[in-house]
C-alpha cells in the first residue's frame, strides 16, 4: 500500500465519481425497467451504443453538435421503446424470457452497428472534449462533468416524479401489484408503453454522454454489462437514485483501490460489493 498525496487521492476520487455517474446513467433505464416492469431489458446497453454511434455520425459526418442530436435521438428511441414493449406484451414474454429475447436483440444491434460503422474504433472529437476547468486544484473535464450532471438531474427528476406525481404513484402501484392497480383505474398497458419508451430514451441520452467521453467499438457493449448490473442491483431495482449512488460507490471504491493498492484490484472491488450486498441485503433484490 502506498500513501498518496491529498491531491492524488482527491483527483482519483473525482475520477471515480465521474465514472460512477456514467454507471448510474447507463443503469438508470435498466433499473427502472427491471424494477417497475419486471423486464431485464439488455437492449438498453445496445441502445446506449447505438445512440453513441448516431451522435458520432451526426458530429463527424453532418457536423451536428452531439447534444443537439438528442433532439432526434430521444423521440426516435422513445418510439422504439414503445414498439418493443408492445411486441413483448403482444407475445406475452415472461420476465425471464425477456432476458433472452433482449439479449438476442442486443446482439442484433451490435451486428447492425458493426455493419454500418465497422468493428474499428471511432472517437468523437468535439469541442467539449477540449474543455476542462480546475476547482480547488482538481481538474474537471467538461464531458465527464456534463455526464455526471445529466445523470444526477435525471435520477433526481425521475425520483421526484415517481414520488410526487400521480403518474409516479401509478407506476409504483403497477410494480407492486398490477392487477390491483388496474382495478383502481391504472391503465397498465399505456403506462407500460410510456415507461418502456422512457427507458430507451434514457439509453439514448446515456449514449450521447458516452460518445463525448469514450472511444467507441461495437463489442464494448458487453463489457459494461457486469458493472452496470452490479450498480443497478446494489442501488435497488426501480429506484432511480439507486444506480447513481451505487455507481458512485463502485467508481470511488475502484479509484481508491487503484490509488492505494494496484489498478488490477479495481474489478475485485465492485463485484465484492455486489456479493456482500447479496449476502446481507437479499430483500432488496
Amino acid at each position: 500500500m502506498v500513501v498518496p498525496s491529498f491531491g492524488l487521492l482527491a483527483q482519483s476520487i473525482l475520477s471515480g465519481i465521474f465514472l460512477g455517474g456514467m454507471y448510474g446513467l447507463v443503469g438508470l433505464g435498466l433499473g427502472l425497467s427491471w424494477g417497475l416492469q419486471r423486464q431485464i431489458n439488455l437492449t438498453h446497453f445496445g441502445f446506449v451504443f447505438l445512440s453513441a454511434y448516431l451522435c458520432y455520425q451526426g458530429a463527424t459526418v453532418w457536423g451536428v453538435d452531439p447534444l443537439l442530436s438528442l433532439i432526434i435521438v430521444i423521440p426516435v428511441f422513445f418510439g422504439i421503446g414503445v414498439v418493443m414493449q408492445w411486441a413483448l406484451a403482444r407475445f406475452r414474454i415472461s420476465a425471464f424470457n425477456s432476458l433472452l429475447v433482449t439479449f438476442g436483440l442486443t446482439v442484433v444491434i451490435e451486428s447492425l452497428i458493426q455493419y454500418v460503422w465497422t468493428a474499428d474504433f471511432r472517437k468523437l472529437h468535439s469541442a467539449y472534449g477540449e474543455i476542462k476547468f480546475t476547482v480547488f486544484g482538481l481538474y474537471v473535464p467538461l464531458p465527464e462533468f456534463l455526464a455526471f450532471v445529466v445523470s444526477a438531474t435525471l435520477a433526481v427528476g425521475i425520483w421526484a416524479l415517481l414520488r410526487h406525481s400521480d403518474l409516479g404513484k401509478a407506476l409504483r402501484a403497477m410494480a407492486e401489484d398490477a392487477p390491483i392497480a388496474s382495478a383502481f383505474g391504472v391503465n397498465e398497458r399505456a403506462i407500460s408503453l410510456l415507461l418502456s419508451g422512457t427507458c430507451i430514451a434514457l439509453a439514448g441520452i446515456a449514449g450521447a454522454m458516452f460518445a463525448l467521453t469514450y472511444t467507441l467499438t461495437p463489442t464494448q457493449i458487453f463489457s459494461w454489462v457486469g458493472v452496470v448490473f452490479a450498480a443497478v442491483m446494489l442501488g435497488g431495482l426501480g429506484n432511480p437514485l439507486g444506480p447513481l449512488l451505487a455507481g458512485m460507490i463502485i467508481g470511488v471504491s475502484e479509484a481508491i483501490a487503484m490509488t492505494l493498492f494496484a489498478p488490477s484490484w479495481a474489478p475485485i472491488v465492485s463485484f465484492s460489493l455486489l456479493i456482500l450486498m447479496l449476502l446481507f441485503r437479499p430483500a432488496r433484490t
Partner: protein
Amino acid sequence: MKAFAKWAAAAAALTAVVGLSAEPARAQGGKPIVIGSTLALTGPLSATGLVHKLTGEIYVDDLNKRGGLLGRKVEWLLKDDQSKPDLARTLYEQLITADKVDLLMGPYATGAILSSISVAQRYNKMLISHTMGIPSLAKYDMHFPAWSLGPDPATTVPTTAFDAVAQAPKPPKTIAIVTSKFPSVHFLSLGARDIAKKRGLTEVLFLEWEFGNRDFGPIAARVKDAKPDLVWSGNIGLEGNMLLEAMKKIDYTPPLHIHSYPAPGPMASAPETDKALALTIFEEHPPFTNNPAVAQFVRTFRERATAAGMPYTAVETQAAASYTAWQLLEAAAVATNSLDDKKMADWLKKSQVPTIQGTLRFDRGNNFGDDLMRIKQVQNKTWVTVWPKEYAAPGATIKMP
C-alpha cells in the same frame, strides 16, 4: 555447394514473392489450390481481424493475377472464428477434415493461433501464423511466425526500445512501467522492468491493470505524481489512448512514452497522442516502400480499406505481418515446387526469406528468428519509424513534446 543451393532456392522464392505484380500472368490450369484459415471477423478482435482479411484478399488476388501458385489458381477459404480460440480450434479441424484444404494459413491473435497450432500438429500440417505474440508457447516444429519478434522478445524488444529513447534530445533517467495484464503485453512489460534495471533506469512506479479497465484517471494521476522521464505503457488496443486521454484531463504530458501495441489509427489521430512511441515492424515510408511491389500493395490497401469504410487505411504492423505470412507460404511452395507440408516446413527452417518487413529466418527457438521490431513515433498525426536508424523514415528522429 549446399549453401549455394539453399541461397539459389531462396533467390527463386524471392523472385516469385517480391516480384509480385511485375511478373506477367501465366496460364492457370488444374484444380484450384484451396488455402483454409479463420480470422476474427466478428467479436472483440474483429477490428484487427478485418485488416488481415483485406490483406489476404489483396495478396490472393495479386497472386492469381500473376498466374496463381505452381500454375494453379488459389482459393482462400476463410471462416469467422468470432474472436474465440475454442471456435478457431473447431474450424481448423473442419478445414482439414471436411473441407480438405490443401494448405493452412494461421488466424489472428495469440489465443486463436495457439488453438490452431494444436490442430495443425495433430494432422501434421504446416501453419504460418500472422501475429504470435508469445514465442515460448509456440512449440510445434511446423509452425512459423510471420511476426518477427525473435525467440526472446521480453529481452530484445525492451532493449530496442531503450536504445531508441537513449537517442532522444533528453535521454530518460527514471521510468514508470504501467501495464495491462493482457498476456502478450504483460510479459514484455516484465521484461522491460528487468532491462530498465540493468540499464540503470530508476523505476519510480510499477502498476498493473486488468484488461478491460475503464477508468484510467487514477493511473494517470499516479504517473503524474511519480514524475518519470519515460513511461513504458504495456497496452493493447485502446488502452494507450485511454491512458493518454486521462493524462490530458489532468494537464499532464509525459516527456517520453512508449506503448506496446496501441490501436494505430486512434493513437495516430488524437491530439494528446502526439510524440507517442510504439513498436512496429513496418510503416508506409522508405526504406520499407522502396520495393515497387510493396509500394503498390500500400496503395491498393489504402484504396480498398477506404472503400470498405475502414477509418485507418495505412499499412502498419498488422497488415505487414499478414502480408508476410502469405509471402512465406508462397515462397515455400515455389521453392519446393510442392504443397507438401513437411517439405515446405523443412525448406522454411533452412532458409532466409525476404519479406515486406525484412528478411525472416526460422532457425532459433520455436522457429523464431531475428527480432525485427522497430520503434515508431506519432509525428504530425502520422506514424514514422525512428529507430533503428537504417529503418527510420528519411530525416526522422525521436522528438519530445
